């Protein structure tokens, strides 16, 4: 039972991170129908920025929660800035282009950003300081670590805030309108370019949160982490039904648990096979994902 719970919480942690990244995919896809392949790289840049800031500040003598929060905030700002710039350079000139062109541009950007970090920093694994401190009251608990608890709570808070934002603010309303019908929203006076920028900024900041938390949990990063995480998170987004925010969270959790239990009970070699196998399986029976709505095409 204890082993089961350990795997359960491990899966929950992974799932939370997938969910945080998947939110960015799903929001962008919902609005401009683009698979933002460079999103994983934004997450990686967030983790790297946090590492640099945290190392610099800890040399200056800072530590503890304030260090985590400061590094996290700077990482969010930088990831958001990168996401914003990415959209302006690689996607905005391609709004009216054939559908696959932005995808190739995204793949190009992903290669570019990976190599940019590789050249600017290093190709080696860098050890990431454990920014999340152990809680004193968790001393006797073995099935869940403090950092896992923090990751889970942060994800829950971030998702709730995002849902509230989309439901109740003017910008959120505009985002839903653009997702539904871009042309109509434009005609009704919604500044579509602004909405798209905000979407990229929010998605990128969430990815940075995921990047900082998981790097601190695992303890090392390199320039390549964004690629795998990006593919997994996109899988999570599709699994849950792309374009749907609760879907992204659910998809992330399902993927996290699948991987965790597959690793724990079967074999860690086939972890990814199970993840993708589950994806194929679900899409065959529910082609629009778990929470996605099947829309019948109008002629």
């Amino acid at each position, binding site marked *: 039972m204890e082993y089961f719970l350990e795997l359960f919480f491990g899966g929950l942690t992974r799932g939370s991170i997938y969910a945080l990244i998947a939110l960015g995919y799903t929001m962008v896809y919902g609005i401009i129908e683009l698979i933002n392949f460079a999103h994983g790289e934004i997450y990686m840049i967030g983790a790297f920025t946090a590492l640099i800031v945290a190392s610099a500040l800890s040399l200056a003598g800072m530590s503890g929660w304030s260090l985590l929060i400061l590094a996290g905030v700077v990482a969010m700002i930088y990831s958001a800035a990168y996401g914003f710039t990415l959209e302006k350079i690689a996607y905005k000139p391609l709004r009216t282009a054939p559908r*696959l062109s932005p995808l190739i541009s995204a793949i190009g950007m992903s290669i570019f950003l990976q190599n940019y970090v590789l050249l600017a920093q290093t190709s080696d694994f860098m*050890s990431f300081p454990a920014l999340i401190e152990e809680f004193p009251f968790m001393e006797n608990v073995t099935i869940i670590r403090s950092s896992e608890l923090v990751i889970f709570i942060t994800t829950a808070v971030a998702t709730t805030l995002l849902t509230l934002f989309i439901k109740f603010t003017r910008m959120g309303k505009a985002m839903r309108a653009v997702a539904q019908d871009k042309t109509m929203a434009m005609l009704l006076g919604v500044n579509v370019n602004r909405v798209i920028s905000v979407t990229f900024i929010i998605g990128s900041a969430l990815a940075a949160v995921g990047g900082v938390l998981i790097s601190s949990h695992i303890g090392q990063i390199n320039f390549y982490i964004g690629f795998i995480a990006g593919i997994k998170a996109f899988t999570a987004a*599709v699994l849950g039904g792309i374009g749907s925010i609760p879907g992204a969270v659910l998809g992330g959790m399902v993927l996290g648990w699948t991987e965790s239990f597959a690793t724990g009970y079967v074999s860690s070699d086939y972890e990814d096979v199970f993840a993708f196998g589950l994806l*194929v399986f679900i899409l065959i029976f529910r082609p629009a994902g778990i929470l996605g709505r099947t829309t019948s095409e109008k002629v």
Partner: protein
Amino acid sequence: MEWKPLIRRAGSEIFKSSVAAVWFMFLTFPLMVIKISPLDRTIEWRWMRMVYVGVGAFLLSFIWRYMLERKETGAEKSEADSWQKRAGNRIRSDRMIFVPILAAIGAFVIVFPFMFSSYQTSIMITALMYVMLGLGLNIVVGLAGLLDLGYVAFYAVGAYFYALMNHHFGLGFWAALPLAGAMAATFGVLLGFPVLRLRGDYLAIVTLGFGEIIRLILENWNEFSFGPSGIAGISRPSTFGIKLTLQEHTVYLYYIMIMLVLFTILVVGRLRNSRIGRAWIALREDEIACQAMGIDKTKTKLMAFALGATWAGFVGCILAAKTTFINPASFTFMESAIILSIVVLGGMGSIVGVIVGAFILILLPEYLRAFSEYRMLAFGASMVLIMVFRPQGIISGIRQRYEFHGKAREEVRT
């Protein structure tokens, strides 16, 4: 002379570029400037880099805006006016130009291995392999409009088929080649069945997943595929009993590749104008209308997957014979992304486009080796730039059009 608007324009351009320069200096600050060495716990500040970024961004933003402006005004001109179309028509219609150009290309292709080193020939073989892969994927993505991100799976199937058959049963290259194609086609149909109902990006992610599953199985199922260490000592193409040196083998393989590429071009070109080819294009344009016209959607899609996969199977078999060693690391998602980029960058649906795209994407990183560490950076950046400034690809696909000219009805290719 009106100086005022000119000065104002110059002022606003300089201001915009300055903003871009400052923005990029801010953006690249933590990653470019600060370098932490964790061992001796020191920070290295590399301020000069910030200056480079600033100056670079300032200058590049001028070029960027100028190019974007040119692209926007250029788009208004009718497509028939573009120099490329006119040149294309001229070359195709005028035998006096067309035949000599073809002959020159043919002669160059034939003497190539004797003019250049075997290293160059080897690179050229790789480029030709990607031409075939690109043309194969072009059937699935360019003609049938099915976004396949796991194309590399069929490539792997072909390669491992030959490698394993050769290892266990000593099967030769020439016998394995058609069988590898057939094997890959079978996998194409196997993948095709479950994904028939999916559309667009769901299809993309499922094919991606399929590609990863194949690679992971090859990596982990040691008894079957020898795991990450791969299979070595695969035989090269047999030469009917003649002994060849390593160099001669490269030349031999080069000519095999040329023949196969010509064969591919012939088949794909004929396919496009065949009944099934037109059905693919119809399917790509509008699935519902296509079904209403009585085209069997299932059969057409499966056919696209199977035929597309066949070429990947062929090339996989060639890869195994060329390198005599394969392991799962050659079949990552990046490979699929590169092949897809060849198709889209060159121009979807266009055969010449795919060939040009393959040569650019494979030869560019090879010849950028002079910049060694910056080559992948330049590669990614050029992918973005080509897409931003030529979203339809370098050579856009040719569409069959029928036009009325007075009473006579004739076929006009534009």
